[in-house]
């Protein structure tokens, strides 16, 4: 962007400035630290100038919004036409409790739904399984059968709202429940919109809700992608997630690298199935963390878009521009919040949300101040939603597209993120790809190392955590949400009633048909839908998978 003579003149001027101006200043007022780094440990220089982005080519590396390589954003108008979807991740107690919370949030200006399931659902168990004891409705909503999904969406028009479901091993089952519930509302599967997370690779790496070994997990994921490409055209078939990788303690670079490496694995698996890349790639979506280091996060999102566009066009030969676009959801960093002085979490979340928006996110969840203590109260979640509304409607950050483009620092950091992430991706590919790397424990241990390093830095006060290792004061406890112990009893009673009322002969038949299909090579989605329709439980369906494909056991690395 700059000619050679201009850069040389700037370098010369910088050297003069360092000798004549800077040196004096450092002597009279030394800097507070020897080195400055991002929260991920990337070095940050004192000053950035055109010298740092001398190789940047505007058309090649940035381009225009809505155009390859999408560094500046995926839409030509970005938030001027429509702000991001405000999508609060919610789920608590029974389906009735969560239905009430959904309606409350929609009344208060939320624009999309996002379901948090309790652990038994996440892991493919029913609420009355011995492993579910103590977990029912605690960390999300209990969904055992279609009946619960029907209650969850009672009075919520499924043709008007899009829904994201954080669900992985049993993603196909929950999608099937969603399809059948919509059908019962008179909404065709061609019309429904939303997302299933459905990203098992990051489960093995970080979030750790797993059920089957990697290979059969991948088969079911490809089944859902293939099925939706034909039958549920508006559905985002996967949300390739860096969020949990980051929460597990990774650096921003690792989050970026492992997420894209996972994405490449899914694309390759679909291509290997015989699908045309442009048939499914437009429905792939991503999910990133918004951590507290403001500029690093913005650079991460911009680098992610550019890298994905290049991979899709150059490596996979995608021709549809929609296949090149990296669309993403963002959640502010749960792991950046502190139990101490919890009101400070509002401030952290607000900065993180702003980074996500300046980075061009398509949808956003803002954490509530009390989520480090329990599921959020109505008051806390309202403040979190209002944080987004203030950002969208008061601060003016939406007025222009990608406002930090051209910043010497942000562009240099964007390049750096890309370069460092490519190093990881190359290394993973040299190992034989992400599945091979996971089997070696490579990404898991890289993250564990980073998490440990970070914790030691906090311990030694190399990094400040306000209220934890600095500015420590007592804070009166905030009021937190308690899940009524009755939830477990009520949920199990409903489950037993469903089991009694349904046609058990039909359920058995449908499960048997699913088992046959699983043993063969057919796409499993139609079979799962038929099981769900007869009110087969999530555990009955997942038990078929566990029986046919075996279980994945945590290697327990630390």
């Amino acid at each position, binding site marked *: 962007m700059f000619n050679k003579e201009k850069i040389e003149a700037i370098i010369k001027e910088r050297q003069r400035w360092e000798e004549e101006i800077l040196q004096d200043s450092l002597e009279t007022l030394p800097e507070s630290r020897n080195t400055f780094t991002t929260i991920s440990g990337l070095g940050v220089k004192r000053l950035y100038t055109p010298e740092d982005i001398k190789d940047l080519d505007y058309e090649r590396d940035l381009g225009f919004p809505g155009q390859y390589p999408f560094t500046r954003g995926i839409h030509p108008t970005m938030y001027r036409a429509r702000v991001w979807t405000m999508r609060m991740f919610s789920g608590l107690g029974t389906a009735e409790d969560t239905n009430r919370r959904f309606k409350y949030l929609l009344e208060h200006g939320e624009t999309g739904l996002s379901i948090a399931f309790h*652990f*038994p659902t*996440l*892991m493919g*168990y029913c609420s009355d399984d*011995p*492993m*579910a*004891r*103590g*977990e029912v409705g*605690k*960390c999300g909503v209990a969904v055992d059968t279609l009946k619960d999904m029907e209650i969850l969406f009672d009075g919520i028009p499924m043709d008007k709202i899009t829904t994201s479901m954080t669900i992985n091993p049993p993603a196909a089952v929950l999608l099937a429940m969603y399809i059948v519930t919509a059908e019962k509302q008179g909404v065709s599967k061609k019309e429904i919109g939303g997302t299933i997370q459905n990203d098992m690779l990051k*489960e093995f790496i970080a*979030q*750790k*809700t797993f059920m089957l070994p990697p290979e059969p997990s991948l088969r079911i994921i490809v089944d859902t992608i293939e099925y939706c490409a034909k039958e549920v055209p508006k559905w985002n078939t996967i949300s390739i997630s860096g969020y949990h990788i980051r*929460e*597990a*303690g990774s650096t921003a670079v690792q989050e970026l690298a492992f997420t894209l490496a996972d994405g490449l694995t899914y694309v390759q698996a679909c291509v290997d199935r015989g699908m045309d890349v442009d048939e499914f790639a437009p429905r792939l979506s991503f999910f990133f963390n918004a951590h507290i280091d403001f500029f690093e996060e913005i650079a991460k999102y911009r680098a992610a878009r550019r890298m994905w566009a290049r991979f899709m066009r150059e490596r996979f030969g995608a021709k549809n521009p929609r296949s090149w676009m990296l669309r993403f959801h963002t959640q502010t960093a749960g*792991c950046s919040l*502190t*139990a*101490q002085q919890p009101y400070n979490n509002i401030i952290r979340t607000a900065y993180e949300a702003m980074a996500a928006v300046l980075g061009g996110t398509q949808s956003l969840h803002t954490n509530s101040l009390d989520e*480090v*203590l*329990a*599921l959020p109260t109505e008051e806390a979640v309202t403040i979190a939603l209002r944080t987004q509304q203030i950002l969208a409607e008061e601060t003016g950050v939406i007025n222009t597209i990608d406002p930090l483009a051209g910043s010497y620092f942000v562009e240099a950091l964007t390049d750096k993120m890309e370069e460092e992430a490519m190093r990881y991706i190359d290394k993973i590919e040299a190992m034989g790809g992400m599945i091979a790397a996971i089997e070696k424990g490579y990404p898991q241990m890289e993250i*564990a190392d980073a*998490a*440990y390093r970070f*914790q*030691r830095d*906090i*311990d030694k006060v190399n990094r400040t*955590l306000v*209220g*934890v*290792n600095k500015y420590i004061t007592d804070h009166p*406890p905030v009021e*937190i949400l308690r*899940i009524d112990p009755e939830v477990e009893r009520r949920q199990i009673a409903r489950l037993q009633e469903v089991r009694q009322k349904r046609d058990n002969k039909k359920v058995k038949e449908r499960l048997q048909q699913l088992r046959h299909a699983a043993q063969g090579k057919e796409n499993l989605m139609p079979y799962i839908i038929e099981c769900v329709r007869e009110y087969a439980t999530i555990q009955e369906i997942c038990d078929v998978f566990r029986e046919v494909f075996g279980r994945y*056991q*945590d*290697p*327990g*690395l*630390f």
Partner: protein
Amino acid sequence: MGEERKVRIMIAKPGLDGHDRGARVIARALRDAGFEVIYTGLHQSPEQIVAAAIQEDVDAVGLSNLSGAHTYLFPRVVELLREQGADDIVVFGGGIIPDEDIPKLKEAGIKEVFTPGTLLEDIIKWVKENIKPRR
């Protein structure tokens, strides 16, 4: 009398909760502090944890839970240890645990509960002071 053997600690993840960042950081910190550490890995039932603790002859079990199921799972582990006559194994725990739950957990036999923001040093210090080889 021979030399005192090293303190053996099992870090365990009971239930279906998958949040293992804290458990793994603690396991590593205790190992680096000179303890023998065994990590169970995820998704262990209280029965599995107790069986492993007895088989591995540990001096203490550190339980980690971030899903809200601690109110059932932590006391259940203590109860099973008692049933097995192994209640000299010290049980401590941590995770997303509301302050008001801590007295109840202690009453149930959980010796100490660590909440988010606790420094590694403090946990190591507590372990050094409170856990001794059982025999």
